[in-house]
C-alpha cells in the first residue's frame, strides 16, 4: 500500500517535467494576453470544472500585494452542451477581449463551440487542454502531456498561475516604455 501513494505522486513527474518544454508557447500566450489588456480588453474564462472561476479570482484579486486588479469574468455553467458559452460570449465580448478556455479532454462541446464563437468575434483565444485535445482550434493551444484528467488539471493550474504572472510582467515592462496602459 505504501508504494501506491508514492506511485500516485511519481505518476505526475512526466507531465510536470514536460511543461518546461512548453515555456516558449506559454510566454507568447502571456505576451498576447497582456497586449489585449493594454488595449482595454477583458479576459473571459470558461471551461470544464471550476478553473474558470479560479482564474477570475487570480486576475481580479491578485495574491501578490501591489499587483493591480485586471478585468476577468468566468462564464456560467455550459461545458456539456454547445450553445451556452457562445451565447454568453456574443452578449458580453468586446473586440479587444481575450478568452482562456480550459478543457482536459479538449472535446467538450460547449468549450469547442465557445472557442469557435470567440474566433469569429475576433477575440484572442487561448486553450488549455490535455494530450488528447491538441487538435482544438485557438490562437494559443497549451497541452498538458497527460491523458489523465486529474494530472492534466494539475498542470493547468500551474499554467494559468504562470500566465497571470506573465501578464503582469509584460504589462509592467511595456507600461514603462509606452506610458500609461
Amino acid at each position, binding site marked *: 500500500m505504501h508504494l501506491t501513494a508514492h506511485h500516485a505522486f511519481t505518476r505526475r513527474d512526466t507531465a510536470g517535467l514536460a511543461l518546461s518544454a512548453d*515555456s516558449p508557447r506559454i510566454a507568447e500566450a502571456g*505576451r498576447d494576453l497582456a497586449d489585449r489588456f493594454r488595449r482595454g480588453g477583458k479576459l473571459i474564462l470558461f471551461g470544464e470544472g471550476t478553473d474558470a472561476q479560479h482564474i477570475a479570482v487570480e486576475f481580479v484579486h491578485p495574491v501578490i500585494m501591489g499587483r493591480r486588479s485586471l478585468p476577468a469574468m468566468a462564464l456560467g455553467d455550459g461545458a456539456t452542451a454547445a450553445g451556452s458559452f457562445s451565447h454568453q460570449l456574443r452578449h458580453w465580448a468586446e473586440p479587444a477581449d481575450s478568452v482562456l478556455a480550459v478543457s482536459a479532454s479538449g472535446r467538450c462541446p460547449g468549450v469547442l463551440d465557445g472557442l469557435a464563437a470567440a474566433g469569429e468575434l475576433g477575440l484572442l483565444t487561448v486553450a488549455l487542454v490535455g494530450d488528447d485535445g491538441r487538435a482544438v482550434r485557438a490562437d494559443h493551444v497549451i497541452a498538458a502531456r497527460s491523458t489523465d484528467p486529474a494530472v492534466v488539471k494539475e498542470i493547468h493550474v500551474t499554467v494559468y498561475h504562470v500566465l497571470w504572472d506573465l501578464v503582469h510582467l509584460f504589462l509592467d515592462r511595456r507600461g514603462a516604455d509606452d506610458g500609461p496602459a
Partner: protein
Amino acid sequence: MDRLEEPAVVLDEDDGLAEAVRSTAEKAAEIVWLRRQVAELAAERLLRCAEAMAARFVGGGRLFTFGNGGSSTDAQELATTFLHPRYGTPLPALCLTSDVGVVTALSNDVGFEVVFARQLAALGRQGDIALGISTSAGSSNLVKAIVEGRRRGMLTVALAGYQGGNLAALQALDHLFVIPSSSVHRIQEAQTTVYHVLWELIQHALGSCSPH
C-alpha cells in the same frame, strides 16, 4: 543622440519574451520539485488519512469540503471528484460554498467567519468528514469549521500552506497536510495533487481499480 539609442530600444522589445520563457521554465521545475518533496513528507500520512476517510464512507459518512477564493474552487472540484468519479465508487460529498444563498445569508446576518461552521452545525453528524483547504492557513472560518466538525464527531482534515498557520496548533484537527512553500501559487498546485492522490488512495482502499 536619439538615433544612436534606437537599436537598444528595438533589442529591448524582444527581451520580455526571453525573460518570460526563463521564468516559466523555472516555475515548472519548482512545482515538480515541490511535488516530490510533498511525496516524501506526506505519502505515509496521506495513506493513513485515506484509510480513515474510507472507513467513514463505509460507515455511512459524508464529506463536506470548504475553502475561500481559489481554494473554494478546489473544494468544489474535490466534492465533484467524489460524487461523480471518473472510475470507482461515487461517494456523498458536498462543497459548502456551492449554496450562495446560505453563504451570503450567514455572511450578511452574522459574519463571514461563521459560514462553514454554521453549515456543518446544521448538516453534519457523527461519522461525517470535514475537509478544509487553505493556502494561508489563517482563515478564521476554516478554523471555526474544524472546531465545529470535531465537536460533532466528524473526522477533520485540512490542507494548508506555509507552516500550517492557525491550523497547525489546532487540537481539533485529525489530519493536516502542510505544503512547504512560500509561494501561494505553488502551494495551490501541490494541494491539487494532494487531494487528487487522497481521492485515488480512498478509491484504492475501497477496492476500486485505478486505470493508471
